């Protein structure tokens, strides 16, 4: 499989605090990599480093062999190829759903507005939100906003999609509708790097699981191995902390 994204020897620190400690990770085309780990382990920071929202102290991130962090060229042309969805949706509150989706394709890719709208409508239809196309974000539920945020990212035809705890801010009954969309995308063969706390979702969607703790990748492997036969004590403990079975 062809490698798309490569993270090599990445170290990120704030002053003395090392958040990511020499992390190596490579993502192949069409692969879904799910990163889990305790809060504050650096998993969200890792995603932010990929998109060059964080300066890194050591190592590099490359997309198709082209270095994107530290970035020499124009960051915006790099970010165009990397879609990102945030925990807090971050739709543009002053724009309708349709405007949210067509803004970047029209302004950045210079796509004809009519074509962009057509594509946006098709995507909205797929996630069951076509009837909301002229609504403003504040008129939508959290789950609806997040689905819009996902299809908004898709409008730029990114090569990699980064999903940063996209269900963490949602009410439990809305988690499903968002995760279903992501599972669909995985089936289509989208390349994704997902940070999440939803372990059952992770298992369903992942091609490869990665466990980060203390700024290091502690363990990685296929979902089956990862959940059924964890090799390290730390991962066992982490997985145990999610199960409530009486001992």
């Amino acid at each position: 499989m062809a490698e798309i994204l490569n993270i090599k020897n990445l170290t990120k620190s704030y002053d003395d605090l090392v958040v990511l400690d020499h992390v190596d990770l490579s993502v192949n085309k069409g692969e879904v990599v799910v990163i889990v780990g305790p809060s504050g382990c650096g998993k969200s920071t890792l995603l932010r480093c990929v998109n060059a929202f964080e300066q890194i102290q050591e190592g590099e991130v490359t997309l198709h062999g082209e270095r994107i962090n530290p970035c020499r060229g124009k960051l915006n042309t790099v970010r165009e190829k990397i879609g990102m969805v945030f925990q807090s949706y971050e739709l543009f509150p002053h724009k309708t759903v349709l405007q949210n989706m067509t803004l970047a394709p029209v302004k950045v890719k210079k796509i004809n507005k009519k074509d962009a709208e057509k594509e946006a409508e098709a995507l909205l239809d797929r996630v069951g939100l076509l009837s909301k196309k002229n609504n403003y974000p504040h008129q939508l539920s959290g789950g609806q906003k997040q689905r819009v945020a996902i299809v908004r990212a898709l409008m730029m035809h990114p090569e990699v999609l980064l999903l940063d705890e996209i269900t963490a801010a949602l009410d439990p009954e809305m988690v499903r509708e968002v995760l279903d969309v992501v599972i669909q995308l995985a089936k289509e063969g989208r390349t994704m790097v997902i940070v999440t706390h939803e372990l059952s979702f992770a298992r369903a969607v992942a091609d490869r699981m990665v466990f980060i703790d203390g700024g290091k990748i502690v363990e990685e492997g296929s979902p089956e191995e990862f959940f059924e036969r964890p090799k390290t004590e730390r991962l066992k403990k982490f997985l145990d902390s999610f199960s409530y079975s009486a001992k």
Partner: protein
Amino acid sequence: MGFEVLLKGTNMHRLLDGLWVALRISLISVTISIVLGVILGSLMTLKNPVIKVVSKIYLEFIRIMPQMVLLFVVYFGSTKALGLSITAESASIIVFSLWGTAEMSDLVRGALRSIPTIQYESSYSLGLNTAQTYLYIIIPQIIRRMLPLSINLITRMIKTTSLIMMIGIVEVLKVGQQIIEANRKSAPNAAFGIYATIFLLYFLVCWPISLLSKYLEKRWEN
């Protein structure tokens, strides 16, 4: 009641001229305040310690000083102490702009800071560059947040122009007083009618502005 005095000669016309003087001074000051306020407000969001201290002193000074004292200082003070000869109208424009710039900059700063960093990142992650992000994402949101409050400031500035007669500008209130004085014998009760008319004129100017602010606030409530 004194309303009949207004119909005598050019009285009503004079009153409207006076109103225009007040409005002209407010309009010029508001324009200057918006331009300088946006610049200063944006500078204030940079974390430069010098800008921080200077702007803080400036804002506090304007907040504490009564506008009338400021008018006297600039008009009477500057002519005598600095040997500058500025017209009363320029003096009022300076004072009102100083005041407006301070308040506008604070509004701009507040609006800029109220937009979370992640909203910028959300825009960058779609491939928009910095200029596009400001143009399409940040500035429209800032304007929406600021406009109702800035319009409120504009009406306050228009109302406060009634002070400028204290430095000898013949604006609507002064014209009113002159008319009352001139008709003291023939219409001793003119004061009520004249002042009521002035009240109404101020109301007619400020009310639509206030309505506009309410309308925009409602339209942009998201």
